Structures are given as C-alpha cells and as structure tokens.
C-alpha cells in the first residue's frame, strides 16, 4: 500500500533517494529563471534588450528581477541610473513618475536618518531614474541590490518597478545608504529593453543579472 502521507520524522533526509516517477502538482508557477548576466568592464552602460543573445524581456514572464552585485563606478560621487525603451534600445526615454527615499548611517555612528529625496524623483520625465546617488568609488565600495519590473509587455497598463539597493555614500566618513525607488513607466507600449549607467564615467566592474519570474 502506497504511503500517502509521511511525517517529517519518518524520512531520513541524510540518505539518498532515487525518484524514478514524475513529480506532479508542482507546476512552474513561481519559478525564477536566470535569463542573462552581464559583467561590466569599464562599460559606459549595460543593456538588456529583448530578442537577441538569449535575452527575453517580453510576455514570457509576468515579472522580471534585475540583481546588482558589486556594481562599482569608475568615477567618485556619481549616481547609478536606469531607463526603459519601447523600441528595443534605439531610445531610452520612457516617461516615468517615481518616488525616491533613502536611509543613511555613518561609519562614525552619527547622522542616522531617513529622508525623501525630491531631487532624485521624477514627475512625467523621460530622464534616467537614479537608483543610487553619490556613490563612492573607493576600492571597497560598490552597489548591490535589486530592481523589479512588472508585466513589461502589457498593452493595457502602465509598468511598475521597485528598486532597493545598498551602497556606500561618497562622504567622509563613509555612509551606508539604503535606497528605495519606485514608480512606473507611463506607457501602454511594451517595455522591451532596460539600460543601466552612471551619471558620469563608466561602470568599472560588477554584474547585473536578469531573472524571469513565471
């Protein structure tokens, strides 16, 4: 008689089990699929464009996640930015309305605060959106975090995005800065490319990975 319910204490998970049947009922919902990782090397920008080199940024997934790991600017005190495209990267100039706030804490334990940054939000602007401001370029400094983009291929709705990352703020003494950015591309055209760059100078090093969430 087949066992239909096994208690956790009934299975020794230190052992190897060989399942020869098909696991059903799991589906693919919620799967997170790595689409592409780009590694900067003195790059003026890093772009993910739908439709080539195995990059998909369309209706294949309902949500996309960009993961930033050790993104390092070549120039001190610059902003890390992004923009979207509706023409597969010919132009990065989609209208956006956004919010931007960050929390900050100094290495000398002073100046802890949370502040809305009105100089870094956008109101119906096609400019690049800052994702981190005044980033330090010391050898031990970098940007790490993530950006979510929801249903970029919708022809009905605007496209929301949310970004959270941590980086070293360019100041003396150094600060850690936790940045929150959210908003939407105010278009019903499909967003099919995303571009990342610094406000000045190159992206010296680091990786950006794109995942699709089914």
């Amino acid at each position, binding site marked *: 008689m087949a066992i239909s319910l096994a208690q956790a204490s009934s299975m020794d998970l230190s052992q190897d089990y060989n399942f020869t049947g098909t696991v059903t009922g799991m589906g693919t919902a919620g799967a997170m699929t790595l689409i592409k990782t780009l590694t900067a090397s003195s790059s*003026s*920008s*890093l772009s993910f464009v739908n439709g080539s080199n*195995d990059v998909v940024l369309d209706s294949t997934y309902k949500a996309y996640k960009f993961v930033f790991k050790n993104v390092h600017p070549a120039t001190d005190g610059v902003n890390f930015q992004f923009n979207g495209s509706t023409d597969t990267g010919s132009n990065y100039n989609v209208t956006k309305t956004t919010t931007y706030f960050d929390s900050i804490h100094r290495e000398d334990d002073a100046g802890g605060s949370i502040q809305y940054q009105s100089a870094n939000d956008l109101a119906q602007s096609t400019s690049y959106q800052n994702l981190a401001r005044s980033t330090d370029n010391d050898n031990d400094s970098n940007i790490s975090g993530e950006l979510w983009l929801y249903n970029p291929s919708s022809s009905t709705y605007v496209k929301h995005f949310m970004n959270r990352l941590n980086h070293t703020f360019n100041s003396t003494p150094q600060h850690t800065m936790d940045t929150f950015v959210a908003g939407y591309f105010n278009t019903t055209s499909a967003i099919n490319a995303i571009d990342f760059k610094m*406000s000045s100078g190159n992206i010296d090093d680091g990786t950006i990975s794109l995942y699709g969430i089914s």
Partner: protein
Amino acid sequence: MPRYKLVNGINIQLTAEEEALRDAEEQAWLDGAFDRAMANLRQKRNSLLAQTDYLALSDQTMSAEMTTYRQALRDITNGLTTVADVEAVVFPTKPGA
C-alpha cells in the same frame, strides 16, 4: 579613448553621436557639482537640526548654547560659492541638551 556599451553581453563601441551625447551628459554632471554638494550639505544640516527640534517645543527651555548651535547650523550655507567651500565646512559641536 572610445567608450563601449555592453548590450546583451556584446561590447559595442559608441557611435560618434552617442559619444557626443555622453560628453554632454558628463559636462552637465560636472556643471552641477556645486548644487549637488550644497544639497548634501543641507541634508546633513537638516538632519542635525531635526535631532534637537524637540528642544524648541513649548514645554522645553532651550539653553543659550543650544540656540547658538542651531543658529550656526542654519547659517552654515552662508557665503559658500564653490565645491571646495562646501567640502571645507566644519559643523559646530552639539552642546549638551
């Protein structure tokens, strides 16, 4: 030195038009250095003022030293005209409450 953009993992040299656009962006960034420095200075100043705002409540009595300290914070942007001026700013020491 030519610039390169990384598109889907492929390094592509910027066109002359893209180079000119990037040059203009970088110049605009340099031109805004003073405004950015002042914004950061004001943020830090405002944070320090906020830490002692409670002393201005009607049921508190602010010491003369604290009044002087808070006025010095408010005046800290006076006379600054260059990035070097901003970077040379020394914040006043917070007195005991």
